[in-house]
């Protein structure tokens, strides 16, 4: 008799009886209200919720570490100072005069247009002997 049930019917029967993952998580989280955290975490029924929470916590921690690492490594933008580096609080920036702009441009010009540090490295392609 059981063998006469088609695959689709089996699937629909199973879906009726088996609760979805979201339902499981919801019901588990509801049960947390009545229990203390240690009891909740050690209950085998809550294994999935605990694993998910741990994964999310690890990810958030990783994200924080990466964001902090990037902010430490990032050099301050030109014209901006970080609060840590400036000994005195920054008030309004000094307006750039035409004279100061001319001077900085002439200084820049003294460096020239060619960046010699970018010239190709010495590489040997004739290696046969």
């Amino acid at each position, binding site marked *: 008799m059981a063998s006469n049930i088609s695959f689709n019917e089996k699937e629909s029967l199973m879906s009726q009886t088996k609760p*979805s*993952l979201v339902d499981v998580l919801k019901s588990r989280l509801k049960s947390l209200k009545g229990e203390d955290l240690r009891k909740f975490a050690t209950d085998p029924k809550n294994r*999935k919720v605990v*694993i*998910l929470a741990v*994964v*999310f916590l690890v*990810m958030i921690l*990783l*994200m924080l570490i*990466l964001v902090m690492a*990037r902010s430490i490594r990032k*050099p301050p933008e030109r014209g901006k100072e970080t609060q840590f580096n400036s000994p005195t609080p920054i008030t309004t920036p000094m307006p750039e005069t*035409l*004279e100061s*702009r*001319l001077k900085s*441009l*002439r200084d*820049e*010009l003294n460096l*020239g*247009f*060619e*960046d010699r*540090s*970018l*010239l*190709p*490295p010495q*590489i*040997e*392609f*004739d*290696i*046969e*002997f």
Partner: protein
Amino acid sequence: MRSFAALITLTFVSFYLFFFVALPANSQDLNFQSAFENYLGARDSYNREYSEFQKARDFYLATKTLVQKENVRRETYEMLISRDDLMSAYLTAIWSRLYQTPGGGGNEKSDILSDLVGEIDWYKNHKSIYNQDLDTLETLFDKSKGAKKHHEETTSFYIYETLATIAFSKYRDTKTKFENIYQEVKSKTEGAEGNKKALYDRWIADIDRKFQEVTDIEVEIKEIIEEFRSDKRRNPDETYRRAIAKANEAKDAIVMIGGFLSELLVAVNSSNGQ
């Protein structure tokens, strides 16, 4: 259980994509400083490997033993891998420098940037043709010839075209900044009358002539850089040298413009009582 595993996998994949794929495209790849440091590291590594290769080669040539031949084979393999690494690191460094240099116009920069990406990929993929365990010394030499040919016929042109375009972009950026200052100083002379006006007009005419010189040289540099992609292309190093020589020629004129502008500014300020 299957959907639970899928949820965990999805979480990991999305975090992986965010941190290791999306972030580098916005920060590391575009950061010249880190690309340049990476290049310096790759250069040191190549120099070390090349020196090891030379030592092994000299020892093999002196002894001619099978053991020493095997030793030189291993060192050759290591050196060839570090050579490809160095090339891709160097190309990445000049790619990011060009990307960050202001003063580019039209499609010039985007075309070169796109070609450089192709070159970087070429060297990254080329590494895999060497086989550490199966390639004989002679096979490694043969495979190395492919890299030499590609470097001579393609890479060196892209390298020097990039370097020339970086210098040219800086040239145009500097010129534009001087032009902006010039317009501001010139506007201050507009209220002048009589002898003052005649004096300012004479000085402005001199400055205009200098700017024209700089513009003429700019056209010449552009024509030289265009040779990299034309039928006239010859020795890329020599073409680059000519472009830089032209830019240096204009530098004197730009320095003079800076001096003239300072003089004009002092004159205008003193007559305005500033």
